[in-house]
């Protein structure tokens, strides 16, 4: 039975390779070449410094290296494991056939090796072999390196599997869509704690510990066993045997533990997840006739709102916000700061808070707005056949993607403002200013969404092509800087005029010119403060609203012309090809 399954996988792999267009082979070759060059540099570096690496330093590098292997495989391999276990399309067929579940599981487990674990394996084994060759290691060294590395990878992969297999039993079927999200968050925290281990176990910084050859972990930690096994085998000492066997046994234990959960975690978990999706029915009172109908622009926005509100994964975009505040706050308190230290004069706290909030807006608004395009995914045809203009769609998507971050961050701002005791005028000015300025970021984000939309069903958060996402990040901050110039000019007191003049005289180049510009504006402000304030507000409005209008209209035009959404079909079998284009 196993052979039939493996043969089938082999055929799929061969047919996938054969059916690739020629240009893909060049892509693969280029990737292999880049990887080979990196590996060469890495190995050459090791060859150069190998002489200076003492046994203790080597042990430290190995321990930390294995820790990285575990962390990376869990973090990067987890989605792959999830895909193999629960979202592979062949499971529907395989589970109706008389194939023992454990066989299907083992094939999936083997499949998981191809990908991150294989890459990690090559990335480690080559430099370690180069090092072995340099130090003229005992012949034992090479098989021990291979087996220890393989064991560490099996342990890491098994942890990734255990995460999936255990969590699937806890997450209710109705939350199947959110399963991956919950798992990513928990595994992120797990890996974070894992990487913090050396810091927690020692008082001194990590690089210092490694370079001074001090042990990173206590002897009972398996990472130490793995490194001791390799160290022992270097010169053929039999000291390698005990830690080596213990590492192998641990790998076997992990694999066995994973296999024991197959029936409950894999098959029943798959059944649970398959029944969970798409089964939600809104019971209760049916919508009565006369339920509110809206203008097309409002209706488009409302549709987006329902899609966001009803899928927890959509909110994941705001997760960094929670990390930013929670970890920042914890970090502040743990470094000895008190809540009262945060309070200060309003002239200081208000602009600082505004700057932080604007930075956050720049991070989220564009992202939320750009996602609205790719969110259409396979439903693009609906908007296409409806009598909606590109303008209706663009403005509909704009208002909602601007409003959501605005509401969330305004609530935070109000809470912060009350805590810091800001006067009403500061509240109003700050909120209105940000409302105007951030519309521009949303419109830029949406336009970038129309030119670089991508939809990956396995990762719904990934809604922009890589290059476009990068452009969005840059464009958001550049826009913010430009749009804020008039506002900042309003804030700088006239008393700073002498300082600006001095800077203008002392510094050349861009900053000098900027200081000169500020000096000129401050001169005008001193002469007629009301006029300059009004002009500043007007200028900010013109820039923000102008950019918003311009980019929204550009989006509308692009929508009218037809948008292509890159649909990522199957990342595993078609790295560069598995895409179809949707359009509207």
């Amino acid at each position, binding site marked *: *039975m196993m*052979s*039939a*399954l493996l*043969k*089938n996988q082999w*055929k*799929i*792999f061969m*047919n*996938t390779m054969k*059916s690739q267009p020629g240009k893909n082979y060049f892509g693969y070759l280029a990737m292999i070449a880049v990887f080979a060059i990196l590996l060469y540099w890495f190995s050459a570096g090791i060859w150069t410094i190998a002489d200076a690496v003492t046994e203790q330093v080597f042990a430290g590098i190995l321990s930390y290296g294995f820790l990285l292997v575990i962390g990376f495989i869990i973090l990067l391999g987890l989605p792959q494991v999830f895909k193999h276990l629960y979202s592979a*399309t*062949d499971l*529907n*067929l395989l*589970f*109706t*056939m*008389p*194939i*023992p579940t454990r066989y299907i599981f083992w094939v999936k487990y083997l499949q998981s090796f191809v990908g991150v674990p294989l890459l990690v394996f090559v990335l480690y084994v080559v430099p370690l072999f180069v090092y072995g060759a340099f130090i003229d290691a005992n012949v034992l060294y090479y098989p021990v390196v291979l087996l220890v590395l393989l064991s560490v990878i099996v342990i890491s992969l098994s942890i990734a599997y255990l995460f999936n297999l255990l969590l699937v039993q806890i997450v209710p*079927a*109705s939350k199947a869509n959110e399963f991956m999200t919950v798992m990513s968050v928990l595994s992120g925290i797990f890996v974070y704690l894992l990487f913090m281990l050396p810091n927690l176990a020692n008082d001194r910084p990590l690089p210092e510990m490694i370079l001074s050859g001090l042990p990173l972990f206590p002897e009972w930690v398996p990472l130490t066993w793995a490194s001791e096994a390799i160290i022992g085998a270097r010169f053929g000492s039999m000291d390698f045997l005990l830690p080596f066997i213990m590492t192998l046994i641990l790998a076997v234990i992990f694999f066995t533990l994973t296999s024991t959960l197959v029936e409950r975690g894999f098959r*029943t978990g798959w*059944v*649970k997840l*398959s*029944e969970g999706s798409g*089964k939600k*029915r809104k*019971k209760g009172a049916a919508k009565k006739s006369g339920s509110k109908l809206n203008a097309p622009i409002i209706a488009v926005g409302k549709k987006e709102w329902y899609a966001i509100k009803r899928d927890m994964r959509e909110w994941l975009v705001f997760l960094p916000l929670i990390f930013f505040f929670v970890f920042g706050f914890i970090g502040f308190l743990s470094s000895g700061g008190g809540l009262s230290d945060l309070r200060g004069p309003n002239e200081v706290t208000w602009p600082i808070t505004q700057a932080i909030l604007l930075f956050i807006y720049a991070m989220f608004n564009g992202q939320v707005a750009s996602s609205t395009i790719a969110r259409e995914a396979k439903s693009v045809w609906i908007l296409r056949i409806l009598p909606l203009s590109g303008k209706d769609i663009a403005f509909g998507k704009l208002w909602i993607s601007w409003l959501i971050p605005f509401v969330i961050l305004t609530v935070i701002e109000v809470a912060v403002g009350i805590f810091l005791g800001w006067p009403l005028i500061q509240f109003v000015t700050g909120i209105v200013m940000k409302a105007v300025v951030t519309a521009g970021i949303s419109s830029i984000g949406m336009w970038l969404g129309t030119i670089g939309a991508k939809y990956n069903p396995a990762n719904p958060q990934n809604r922009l092509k890589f290059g476009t996402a990068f452009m969005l990040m840059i464009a958001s901050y550049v826009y913010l800087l430009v749009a804020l110039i008039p506002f900042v000019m309003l804030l700088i007191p006239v008393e700073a005029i002498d300082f600006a003049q001095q800077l203008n005289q002392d510094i050349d180049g861009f900053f000098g010119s900027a200081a000169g510009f500020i000096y000129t504006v401050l001169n005008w402000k001193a002469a007629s403060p009301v006029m300059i304030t009004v002009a500043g507000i007007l200028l900010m409005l013109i820039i923000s609203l102008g950019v918003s209008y311009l980019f929204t209209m550009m989006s509308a035009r692009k929508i009218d012309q037809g948008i292509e959404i890159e649909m990522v079909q*199957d990342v595993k*079998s078609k790295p560069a090809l598995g895409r179809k284009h949707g359009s509207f």
Partner: protein
Amino acid sequence: MESQSIKLTNLTKSYRRQEAVKSLNLEVKKGELFGFLGPNGAGKTTTIKMLTGLLKPTSGSAEINGINIWQHPLKAKEKIAYVPDQPNLYPKLTGWDYLEFVASVFRIPKERFQTKANELLRVFSLTEQANDLIESYSHGMKQKIAICGALIHEPDVLFMDEPTVGLDPKSARSLKNLLRELCDRGMTVFLSTHILEIAEQMCDGVGIIFEGDIIALGTMDELKASGGHADQSLEDIFLELTGGEDQQAIISEISDDGDAK
């Protein structure tokens, strides 16, 4: 010897408080072609998935040839085949590769496989395309190769969910004839369909499920005799039982209003 091929005893599926399938009791005899009818969302696919081991019942049992599929899944699955309404097949296998895979899993002797595969491919006019990748197939062709895969090991019980969706008239006719012939030779077929004509013409027994309950069960003659429907077609009976007649009345009312204006 068990004469029932399929036996459902108080089979129930609930999602939170909502019962999608309500304590079904049903028996399908060996060699019977059973049509499982019902409006959209009535619980047809949920029932089939519970019978094929893809969905765990909340309570009750499902037996195939006397074997409880949730207690002895492998033994039961050796007896069955399933063709879903949207067959998700391996896109990177050819039609032949796919049939070979299924045959390997069921350990069919090579000669028998060759003969059977050729015969099925011919029936469904797929011989020419059998060496093409499945990803290049149309929906109907995928449906046909899935049916070939289901029949290749000559299962005792065949479950089909909307089997004629996507099939061209010729293939639909071939399928109907083939199913009838296979049932006459002893295979049991449990199919869900919306096309009442198929059920009326082909099925030995019919069950109508509505909101998770079986509201009518029996042969065509029994259904007609039961509620004084002697002169009615299956469509009339179906619409009467599932509330389609009320919808028809509303449609008439709307069109009358339209005319009045």
